[in-house]
């Protein structure tokens, strides 16, 4: 029941704007009729059955900043059961010797375009940017995801178990992002992380003004700001109308008429209600500060700034406002707003007690996110900071989970958490290290030693030669 309730809470606003869980006075019959279609495109993912597993004596980066050497890990029925010394082998368990191996939580990439910009990257597949209007909060990235994108399985081989798929950054409001489990599925619903909140992709700076500068605007950064504000003004009115209607229904007013639905406004209302998390593409420090002011003007929380190349310049401001900074280890120079990159960005955010996250935004780097973390960590240590792999791995585990609203399920190897686990053949941040085995919810999804059993996309079959799969 709790699950169902959570799901309704997540999706209620989608169909009717009703929040079933919050409105306890709503009668069952009303709830049924109003909410019949309230969770469209819901996850159909089922935790696969799998044997209990014990991994003995590995070096464990827990994901919460701690490290535990020569330690056993047990998981069963999809959940972490225990972490400790000389743990008992559960009945029927698969037992693995982890000596010389490292364990981390499943890697989380909070900024991916897998499925919406899949490979081959042909125009037939380019479904990540709805470049028809600067304001398209109505579109959902999941409706563009092609589950056969051969990138997914390569990311899995790099230990990525969860990815947030976002629309592109051409628009001020790019649309809704979706959190996927990196599992093979014919439908996107089969990949959707159950009960994960949606996100709203917003974009600052050069991209929207470049795309729309000669198409009616915005053509400037001040135009961008005016565009956001106009949309939030409409959203606030919409929110008010629907809230009044809901109150009327809840108080038994049978004559109350439902306002008409508007997909654009539903997404923005979800943000105003705190149900949709804002993930905001924003490079420059001054623009991040403007976006924070904007969020205060309209009363919503920004969850994370992405591609936050200049986050180090406003790290205390971000920390104070509980906003994560999602950054690359070292990308720069492709745009003016990406000119002030420092390799120590993530570490300086950490130093200011902020929430640092490393993302890929890239199908090559998603295959080796721990290397990206390793570079950022090493750069910081070179300047005299003393970051450890245990601390730095939080940039792609627990901090990432926090920004997705999934801290209670993924991102750390603690008792009761989902058994998303990666076994590495060494320090995961080394260029020479590879993921040996990857489990999602306790099920072995990738095994380097057993390539025949690893999933390969439909796209790969017979495409190089009739008998062979694409490697």
């Amino acid at each position, binding site marked *: 029941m709790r699950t169902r309730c959570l799901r309704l809470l997540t999706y209620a606003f989608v169909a009717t704007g009703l929040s079933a869980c919050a409105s306890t006075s709503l009668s069952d019959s009303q709830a049924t009729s109003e909410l019949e279609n309230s969770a469209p495109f819901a996850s159909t993912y089922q935790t696969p059955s799998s044997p209990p597993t014990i991994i003995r004596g590995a070096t464990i980066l827990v994901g919460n900043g701690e490290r535990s050497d020569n330690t056993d890990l047990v998981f069963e029925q999809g959940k972490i059961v225990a972490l400790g010394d000389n743990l008992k082998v559960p009945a029927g368990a698969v037992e693995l010797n982890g000596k010389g191996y490292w364990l981390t939580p499943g890697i989380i990439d909070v900024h991916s375009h897998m499925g919406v910009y899949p490979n081959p990257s042909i125009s037939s597949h380019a479904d990540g940017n709805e470049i028809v209007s600067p304001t398209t909060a109505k579109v959902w990235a999941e409706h563009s995801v092609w589950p056969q994108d051969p990138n997914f399985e390569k990311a899995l081989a790099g230990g990525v178990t969860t990815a947030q798929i976002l629309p592109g950054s051409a628009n001020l409001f790019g649309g809704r992002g979706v959190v996927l489990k990196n599992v093979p599925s014919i439908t996107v619903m089969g990949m959707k992380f159950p009960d994960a909140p949606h996100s709203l992709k917003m974009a600052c700076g050069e991209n929207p003004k470049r795309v729309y500068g000669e198409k009616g605007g915005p053509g400037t950064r001040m135009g961008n700001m005016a565009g956001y504000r106009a949309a939030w003004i409409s959203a606030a009115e919409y929110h008010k109308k629907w809230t009044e209607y809901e109150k009327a229904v809840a108080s038994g007013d049978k004559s109350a008429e439902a306002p008409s639905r508007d997909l654009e406004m539903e997404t923005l209302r979800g943000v105003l209600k705190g149900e949709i998390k804002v993930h905001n593409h924003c490079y420059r420090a001054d623009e991040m500060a403007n976006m924070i002011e904007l969020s205060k003007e309209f009363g919503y929380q920004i969850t994370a700034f992405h591609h936050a190349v200049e986050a180090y310049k406003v790290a205390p401001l971000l920390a104070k406002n509980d906003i994560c900074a999602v950054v690359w280890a070292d990308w720069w120079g492709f745009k003016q707003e990406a000119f002030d990159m*420092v390799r120590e960005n993530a570490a300086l955010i950490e130093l200011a007690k902020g929430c640092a996250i490393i993302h890929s935004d890239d199908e090559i780097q998603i295959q080796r996110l721990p290397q990206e973390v390793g570079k950022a960590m090493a750069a910081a240590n070179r300047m005299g900071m003393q970051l450890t792999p245990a601390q730095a791995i939080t940039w792609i585990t627990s901090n990432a989970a926090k920004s997705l609203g999934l801290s209670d399920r993924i991102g750390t190897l603690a008792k009761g958490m989902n058994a998303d686990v990666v076994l590495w053949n060494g320090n995961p941040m080394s260029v020479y290290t590879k993921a040996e085995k990857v489990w999602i919810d306790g099920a072995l999804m990738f095994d380097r030693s057993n390539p025949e059993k690893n999933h390969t996309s439909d796209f790969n079959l017979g495409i190089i030669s009739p008998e062979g799969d694409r490697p």
Partner: protein
Amino acid sequence: MTNLLKTTLFVALLSLVSMANAADILIKNARIVDGQLRDANQLSDILIKGSMVVGLGTGLSTPANGRVIDAQGRPVSAGLFNADTQLGVREVGSVADTVDSSTSNEHITASLQISDAYNPSSVAVAYNRSLGLTHSLIQPSNGAGIFAGKASVVRLSDTGAILVDTAAMVVSLGEAGSDLAGGSRAAAMAMLREALEDARDYSKNRESFARGSRRDYSLSRHDLEALVPVIMRQLPLLVRVERASDIERVLDFAEQQKITLILSGVGEGWRVADKIAKAKVPVIFDPINNLPASYETLGMRADNAKILHEAGVKIMFTGMGWQNTHNAYLVRQSAGNAVANGLPYHVAMQAITSNPAQIFGLPGYGEIKVGAEASLVLWSGDPLEVMSNPDLVLIDGKEYSLESRATRLRDRYYSRLTSD
């Protein structure tokens, strides 16, 4: 001519001055990592006088006025070489005024000389140098035709940066060639064939061309002149090509035309590795690529480098990924990943140092040996490991700062964060 002489003299004087000022350096107890198969436990001293390595061995005596750096077992490699960048010709990717890598001018294709645009003061040059990159092949990109222009070898020094003005003629075939040639890869081949025929005809008939009594050619006079060294086999044709069948086709073509090739891209190179090896054609690619980004790279795989090497192909690397200019130094991350996927370590080092030195004719660079140019890097750890960083960067004996605009920004904000 007078101006040119003056410039040359000036440069020569400058380099004399800098040589005289450069202190001798003795690096003690270094682990030399230069693409040769060496004993990993063997430590060596390296003595540098002026611009050259003059001594190599154990227990070398300290020079009179020199510096001594104890490497304590840290590795020293040749400065790194990235074989496909736009360093110095692309400052900010989206700012057109700062990007000189291509032109839409249809009269300038093969004749685009990329070294004409090279800026040694680029922020990206200093940044990559501070992180261990000392040399690069600067490749133009395609504008109006299948020929992108003439690639140049530079070293990332303040002066004397252009080492090889014209190192290769760059042409695109395959899907990019098809786009440039009107929608068919076969049309791109036809354009290439026609251009080389025209260059041959032109080279034998310059006078009648000047009189206006020769037939029309497919390219401008300067473009044809630029192609003459290719047909004379004095300049390699660097062909960007990915698909196995396109590679085979261009290998056959080069044999018929008696031209020298370098292949770049070669996503499906592993499928025709033996043929590339037999033709003795070197290749440039980013070994980290393993995805079917296009239909011509369906076969892209992580062990392409291993397979090509095992077949006997000489390899050079670029990377990492699309950040191969601003983060050109990360070619070492691409190389490290190639090792993780089966390429022998010393071959990966060759691919980013000595192989390009041999292929582009840089006799002093690429190996650590007596008589070599002192363009080398002392690393905090394994140069192919992503967590290593340079501790010392020398180009031609001159020590370069490990600071960059990025570290200046870092320091400014670090001090604000820590003083609050």
